[in-house]
């Protein structure tokens, strides 16, 4: 299984990848992108099994990435790992096709509880 982790913070990409491994998904291969535009190119070239994206990023935000993918008919599994917890943003995320929205900070256990249903 391959997961694309999209975040403009190298520190947070590392934390997300470590938490996924600590959640028991040792065999996952990771690909990294620093913003939505970079992620879009990677997904178009080789869709991963799951995209875990930040919301606020330069060049292209996470929600813009998701909307662009869905507008192209791309149904890659995608969710958000973000410091945003605004109910309106959560509604927008799920209406746009997100499968989960994890609020930072998180633990490996809380992350696992959210991503387990989509890790198949």
């Amino acid at each position, binding site marked *: 299984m391959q997961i694309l982790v999209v975040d403009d913070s190298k520190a947070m990409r*590392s934390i997300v990848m470590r938490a996924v491994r600590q959640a028991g998904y040792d065999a996952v291969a990771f690909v990294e992108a620093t913003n939505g535009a970079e992620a879009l190119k990677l997904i178009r070239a080789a869709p991963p099994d799951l995209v875990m994206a930040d919301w606020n990023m330069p060049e292209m935000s996470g929600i813009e990435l998701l909307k662009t993918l869905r507008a192209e008919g791309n149904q890659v599994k995608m969710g958000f790992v973000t410091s945003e917890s605004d109910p309106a943003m959560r509604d927008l995320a799920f209406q746009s096709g997100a499968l989960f929205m994890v*609020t930072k900070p998180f633990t490996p256990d809380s992350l696992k509880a959210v991503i387990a249903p989509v890790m198949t």
Partner: protein
Amino acid sequence: MTSPDAGLGAWLADLEGSVEEIATTALGLPGMTVDRRHEAPPQLHGAYLGLVGPAGAVQIGLASSAEGCQALAKGLMGMGPDDAPLPEGEMADAVCEIINIVAGAFKARVRDRASALQMGLPVFIQGAVQATDRVAVRVAEVRLGAVAAAVLLIHPRPGAEG
């Protein structure tokens, strides 16, 4: 956003609470104490992030010494104090991520009186923020575990918005 001054004490209290929450849950630094509050921006290293709403904008910041920023960054990364220092760029990136997470917690705390706040992207600055005729700075000197830090709320002075 409520007008400056009237609710600024509450805003700073919510910001302090957000920093304490994130220090406890994400940095492994529980038990924040506030040493003093004032309006003199300190000469420190720190990360700042803007929050913009329909009625105005504020910047929030978390600053410390170079060593303190290392400790905060290591806390976020799950590293111990004896681990080798992070390269400066990685330290700055981590402290920016901390203020990003703090901003999310802060937004949640002030949602009832400031909905629709939009978060900007964090920046790392070495040196003091300059207060001006238009912009004021409120500072809370805090201790996060053994780390001395400053929590900053940068806001328009009353009548200076626009």
